[in-house]
């Protein structure tokens, strides 16, 4: 299940969807990314996420397929929001269930690392002083992604 949407998501509902009627998966790993108040040394009030609609879901489908071919996974859910998001709002949700926690942890990290470096989303931040700037791609993210390549 992959969604790109402006609206918020509910972690409780997503978790229910991961586990409902599922007696095989002993391990569920979730990741939620939130708008935090500091980024690259600037105080942030909000951000706007732009994406390339025709390409985004295609890339996300492909990333999930790659994860499924690397690890033995049960259910995978991935939600990424677009539009304007304020402090502490949810940006991204990744959930993976598996028989074994090692697979679930590895796949969830893989999904986030590859998403962060390959999925066509761009963040523009608003600082508390009211100015806007595009976020620079993070070298740390590039390094995190490289360990899977």
């Amino acid at each position, binding site marked *: 299940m992959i969604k790109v949407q402006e609206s918020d998501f509910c972690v409780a509902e997503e978790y229910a969807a991961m586990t409902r009627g599922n007696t095989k998966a002993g391990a569920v790993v979730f990741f939620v*990314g939130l708008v935090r108040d500091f980024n690259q040394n600037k105080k942030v009030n909000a951000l706007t*996420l*732009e*994406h*390339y609609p*025709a*390409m985004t879901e*295609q*890339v996300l489908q492909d990333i999930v397929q790659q994860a499924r071919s690397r690890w033995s996974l049960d259910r995978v859910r991935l939600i*990424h929001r677009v539009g304007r998001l304020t402090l502490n709002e949810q*940006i*991204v949700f990744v959930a993976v269930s598996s028989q074994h926690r090692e697979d679930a942890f590895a796949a969830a990290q893989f999904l*986030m690392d590859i*998403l*962060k*470096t*390959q*999925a*066509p*989303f*761009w*963040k*523009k931040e608003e600082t508390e002083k009211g100015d806007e700037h*595009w*976020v*620079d*791609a*993070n070298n740390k*993210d590039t390094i995190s992604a490289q360990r899977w390549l």
Partner: protein
Amino acid sequence: MIRVLFFAQLRETLGSAGTEVPHDESATVADLKAFLMSKGDSWQQAFSNGKVLCAVNQTMVQDDEKLCDSDEVAFFPPVTGG
């Protein structure tokens, strides 16, 4: 014609979300870039820093990628989602 799209700060720098370029000006991505850079200083600058990424028909490609008529070519900065 090649349909060209720009995203994020590239779109803002160029003041354009997209354009169309004749296929005979753009046999490859490198050709298309050269054509776009000839459109003025801001175009020259935007494409010369080596950081602009390219997707043809929604798949990431390198500069030597050949283009076909009616391809959709997108240029954008490194991604920052998640």
